[in-house]
C-alpha cells in the first residue's frame, strides 16, 4: 500500500493508520475503507484500536482521525 495512494480520494480526508501505515482516507466507515482498499471480495477480519469489529458491524462503525485499523487474513502458522 502506498502511504496515501489507494485510500485517497476527493473530499475531506481523515488520517488513520492501517496495518501500521499512515493512510489518508475519505472513508467514514470501516466498510467504506475496505471498499476503497479493494478488500471487498477477500475474506478478512478487522479490528479498530485493538477491539475486534465483526463483519456485521463494519458498515455502522465510524472512523475517526488517529484510529488504528487492523485488516488480517489467513496465513501459515505453527
Amino acid at each position: 500500500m502506498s502511504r496515501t495512494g489507494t485510500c485517497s480520494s476527493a473530499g475531506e480526508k481523515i488520517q488513520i493508520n492501517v496495518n501500521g501505515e499512515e493512510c489518508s482516507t475519505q472513508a467514514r466507515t470501516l466498510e467504506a475503507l475496505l471498499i476503497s482498499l479493494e478488500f471487498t471480495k477477500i475474506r478478512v477480519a478487522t479490528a479498530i484500536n485493538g477491539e475486534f469489529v465483526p463483519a456485521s458491524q463494519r458498515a455502522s462503525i465510524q472512523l475517526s482521525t488517529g484510529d488504528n485499523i487492523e485488516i488480517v487474513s489467513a496465513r501459515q502458522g505453527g
Partner: protein
Amino acid sequence: MNLIAKVPPDTQDELSFYEQAVSSRMLLGTALYPSPQVMADAVKASGCQIVTVSLRRESARGKVGARFLELINSLDVHVLPNTAGCRTAKEAVTTAQMARELFGSEWIKLEVIANDDTLQPDLFGLVEAAELLNKDGFKVFPYTTEDLGAAERLVAAGCRVLMPWGAPIGTGRGLANPYALKTMRNYFPGVPLVVDAGIGAPSHAAEAMEMGYDAVLLNTAVARAADPVKMATAFAMAIEAGRMAYQSGLMESRDMAAPSTPVAGTPFFDLGAPPKR
C-alpha cells in the same frame, strides 16, 4: 506416499479434543515449508487431521490469505488458528475473535508470549486470556509450560486440553524437562495433553508419546527437513510407535545388568570362573 496408512488404526484408541474425535495424534504447523505444495504434501503424508494456521496483516488488494485459505480447505483437515506473536491477553483475545470469524471455528491455539528470545508463554497473560475466551465460547488449546499451578488455573478456566512446551519454539531440542512433563502427565490423567514446540526429531516425539502424552504438535522439524514430506511420514510413524509402546507398558529400567539369556544350563557354568590372565 502415506506409509502410516499401512498401520491399521486402533479404533479402540480414540482421542478427542472438545468432543471432536481424531485418529491421528499428530498436529502439524503449516509455516516455514519450501513451498505451499510441499506443505500440502507433508500434511497428507503425515496423516494428521489438525493443522495450525495464523492471522497476519493483509495488504490492499492482497489475495495471499485467500489463496492460502483455499489450499488449507482442500486438505480436508481441522484448522487450529493460533495467536502467535501476541504479547498481552488483550492482543490474544482480539486475535482469537478475528480468527473465529475468519476460519469459522471456535478452536484457538492460545499463545501469549513473554519474551522474544525464548518465546516462552506468559503464564499470567495466558490464564487471563483463557478465562476471557472460555467465557466467550472459545475452545482453547493453551500453549503453556509444565507449571502445574498455571495448568490448574487453565483447567479451572475451562480449558479441556493443555499443551506444554517440550523446549522453546523452533529450537528442536526435544524434551528439555522430561521429569516435569512426566509429573504433569501423572497430575492430569484425564486431560488431553499435547507436547507443543521444541520437537526436533521423531525420537523426541516418540519419547513424549511413550510418557503417555496424547499427541504432539510440531512444525519446524518437518518444514525445515531436507525432505519435509518424508520427515512428516517419519514423525507419524514415531508417534504411532510411541503410542503403542505406552499402551504396551514399558519395562522398568534398572541400574545393574540382568542377563536376558537363561543362566541355567550355561555350558562350563559349574567349572568356576576362568583363570585371570
